[in-house]
C-alpha cells in the first residue's frame, strides 16, 4: 500500500505549481475572465510543454502518461484557476483515447495532443470549452458521441464562472467508438477523476488563501485567525479538502491500475469532490469577511469555478444513492 506519488509525479506537480504561480497569478486570471477569453500566451506555453497530450498515447503524439499524472496537472490548474481550454481538450482526448474507434483516434488525437486543436467535453446542457473546439465529446447516461466543431450547434452559456467558456451543444455526430460500442461507459468515470482532481486544487487554494489572510488581517487588535470559530471553519475546510483528495487520488489510481474498481471510485470522487467544492469554497468567502464578497478579492473565482466543476461532475446525490444501492447489492 503506497498512497504517495512517484518521483516523476512529484516533479510534475512541483513544476506545474511553480510555472502556474509565475505565469498565471490572479491578475492574469482576472484579465482573461473580465475579457471573456482564455489566456492565450499561457495556453501556448502549456502546449509547448505538452500538457494537453499528457495522457494521450505516444503513437498519437502524446506523452502516454496516466490518469494520475493528468490528475496532478489538473489539480495544479485548479489551484491556479488558470483560464485555458485544457480541461475540455484533455477530457475529449481521454474519451477518444479510451473509447474511440481507430479512425476517431487517428483523426483527433494528434491535434489534441499538440494543442493545435482544442476539444470540448460535457453533457449536452453543459459542455466545457466547446467554443472554438474542433471536436466535442458529448455524453449522456447511455452513450457518448463525437461531434465536430463544424457540425455542432454551440450555444454559449454566460456562466457564473468567467474563467472558462461553457456552452450548450447539440448535434448528432457519430457514436464514440463507432456504432454499438460498449466502451463509452468508462468515459464519464474517467472524466470524473480529472474534474475531481481540479476541484481538489480549487479547494486547496481557497484554504491556503484563507489561512494566509487570517494570519494578516487584524480585528480587536489580534489576527482574525486567533478566533476559534474562524479556526474551526478552516479545520472544516481542510477536512473537506483532504477527504476529496483521498477520493480523487483513489479514483485516478483505479483508472490506471484497477479499472474494475473505477465505477465505485469515481462515484466516491464525484460525491466527495462535489461536496468539498460546494461547501469548502463558500467558507473562504465567509472567512475573508466583507472583502470576500467583493469582486476585487480573488476568492470568488474559486467559488465560481467550484460551482461549475461540481455541475460538470453531475449530481453528488445521485452518486451517493447509486453507491448505497451498490453496497446493498454486494
Amino acid at each position, binding site marked *: *500500500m*503506497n*498512497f*504517495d*506519488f*512517484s518521483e516523476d*509525479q512529484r516533479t510534475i506537480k512541483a513544476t506545474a505549481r511553480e510555472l502556474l504561480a509565475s505565469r498565471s497569478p490572479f491578475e492574469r486570471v482576472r484579465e482573461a475572465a473580465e475579457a471573456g477569453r482564455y489566456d492565450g500566451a499561457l495556453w501556448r506555453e502549456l502546449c509547448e510543454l505538452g500538457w494537453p497530450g499528457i495522457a494521450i498515447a505516444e503513437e498519437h503524439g502524446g506523452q502516454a502518461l496516466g490518469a*494520475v499524472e493528468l490528475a496532478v496537472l489538473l489539480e495544479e490548474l485548479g489551484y491556479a484557476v488558470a483560464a485555458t481550454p485544457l480541461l475540455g481538450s484533455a477530457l475529449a482526448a481521454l474519451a477518444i483515447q479510451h473509447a474511440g474507434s481507430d479512425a476517431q483516434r487517428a483523426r483527433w488525437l494528434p491535434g489534441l495532443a499538440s494543442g493545435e486543436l482544442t476539444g470540448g467535453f460535457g453533457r449536452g446542457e453543459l459542455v466545457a470549452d466547446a467554443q472554438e473546439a474542433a471536436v466535442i465529446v458529448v455524453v449522456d447516461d447511455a452513450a457518448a458521441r463525437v461531434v465536430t466543431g463544424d457540425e455542432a450547434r454551440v450555444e454559449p452559456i454566460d456562466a457564473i464562472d468567467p474563467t472558462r467558456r461553457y456552452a450548450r451543444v447539440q448535434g448528432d455526430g457519430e457514436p464514440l467508438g463507432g456504432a454499438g460500442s460498449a466502451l463509452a461507459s468508462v468515459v464519464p468515470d474517467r472524466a470524473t477523476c480529472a474534474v475531481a482532481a481540479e476541484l481538489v486544487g480549487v479547494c486547496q487554494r481557497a*484554504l491556503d488563501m484563507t*489561512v494566509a489572510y*487570517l*494570519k494578516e488581517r487584524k480585528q480587536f487588535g*489580534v*489576527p482574525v*485567525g*486567533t*478566533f*476559534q470559530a474562524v*479556526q*474551526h471553519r*478552516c*479545520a*472544516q475546510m*481542510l*477536512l473537506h479538502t*483532504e*477527504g476529496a*483528495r*483521498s*477520493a480523487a*487520488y*483513489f479514483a485516478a*489510481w*483505479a483508472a490506471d*491500475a*484497477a479499472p474494475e474498481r473505477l465505477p465505485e471510485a469515481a462515484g*466516491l470522487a464525484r*460525491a*466527495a469532490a462535489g461536496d468539498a467544492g460546494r461547501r469548502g469554497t463558500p467558507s473562504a468567502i465567509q472567512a475573508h469577511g466583507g472583502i470576500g464578497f467583493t469582486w476585487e478579492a480573488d476568492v470568488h473565482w474559486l467559488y465560481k469555478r467550484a460551482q461549475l466543476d461540481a455541475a460538470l461532475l453531475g449530481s453528488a*446525490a*445521485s*452518486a*451517493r*444513492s*447509486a*453507491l*448505497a*444501492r451498490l*453496497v*446493498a447489492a454486494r
Partner: protein
Amino acid sequence: MDLTFSERESAFRDELRAWFAANDPGPQPGGSSDSDAHYAWRRDFQRRLYAAGWAAPHWPVEYGGRGATLTESAIFFEELGRARAPLPANVLGILLGGPTLMAWGTDEQKDRFLGPILSADEIWCQGFSEPDAGSDLAALKTRAVRDGDGWLVTGQKVWTSGAQHAKWCMLVARTDAEAARHKGLTYFLMDMEQDAVQVRPLRQITGESEFNELFIEGARIPDDNVVGGVGNGWKVALTTLMNERAGLAFFLQVRMRRLLDDLIGEAAARGLLGDDLVADRLGALHVKAEILRLTAYRGLTAIEKYGQPGPEGSLTKWMWSEANQELTELAADLLGPEVLVAGSRWGYELLRARGNSLEGGTTEILKNIVAERVLGLPRVRG
C-alpha cells in the same frame, strides 16, 4: 501510487485470516460490556493471540512482537474487527504503555514490564485526566512528593478505563509545584494493588461503566517506576498520546463499516432503498466511511515514507466520530422506535456514539489542533 497490498502485506493478511478462521473468538457474552464475563472474554482472547505471537504484531521482535510495519499493524486491526474479535483486554498496555516504555524506559523496566503486558498477566490503565484537567491536561493537580527512596502520590484521576482490572497505571503527577505547568510533571507506573488507590466505577449514559474514577491517598511508588526521568512527564505523556490513535483507528473504522453494512442491509430488506432520499443518506455515510479508510491509509504512507504524519493524520479520529454518530442517528430515523428499546443493539450504539467525539480528544480540541499545528493559524490559548 499503489493502493493494493504488497505481496508481503497480503501474506501477512492471509496468515492472520487463516488464524482467525481457526480461532473463532465466539459470540460476545451477553450483558453489558463492563461485566466480568465480557472482561474474561477479552482477556482469554488476548491469551490466544499471545500464544500464537499475535498479541502485538507492531512491537519489535525482541520484545515479543513481529516487527510489523504500520500498514501491517493496520491490517491486523482491520482483521481483528472483521473477525468480530474483541480488542485485547490489555489494549492500553499494548498500544500505549509498551511503546512508551520502549521509547523512554530503562532496560530494567522493559525487562520487568513488557512481557506481562503481552500475556495479559498484568493489565494496564491510564491515569492522565482529572476532574479539572481534561482537554487541558497540563492543569493536572495530582501530586507526588518525595518519601525516602520513592514517592507518595495524592490526587484524583478520572476516565480511567479498565482500572478495576489493572495492575499498573500510567500516571502523570506533579512533582514540582514551583515549575511552569508543563514542567514539573513526572510519569510513573503506579501499582494499583494498594489500599491507597480506590477505584470507583463511573456510570455512563449507556448505563454501563467502562470508565472509573481513581481516588489516590498517599499511594507509594518506588523510584524504579519513574519513566523518562523526574520532571520529564509531559514529553513522556505526549509519546503515549501520539500512540493512542494509530492502530485503533483501523479497528474502529472496520467496526463502523460493519454497522453501516448492517444498516444498509436492513434498509434494503425493508424496501427503503428505492427511496432516493434514504439511498442518498446511506450513500453519504458510505462515502464518509470510504474516505475515512482511504485517508487513514494515506496517513500511514506519509509516516512510513517521511517519518511524520501529513495533514490528513489529524483528521481521521474526527471523521470517524462524526460518521459513527451520524450512522446511529440515521439508524434511529430509518428503523423507527423499535430500535430505541433499551439494551437493543441500535439503542446502545446511539447512546455509546455520543462518547466518540469526547474520548481520546474532543472534536473541538482536535479542530484547534488542526488549525494551529496543521494550518499554522496563530495560537490563542496559554
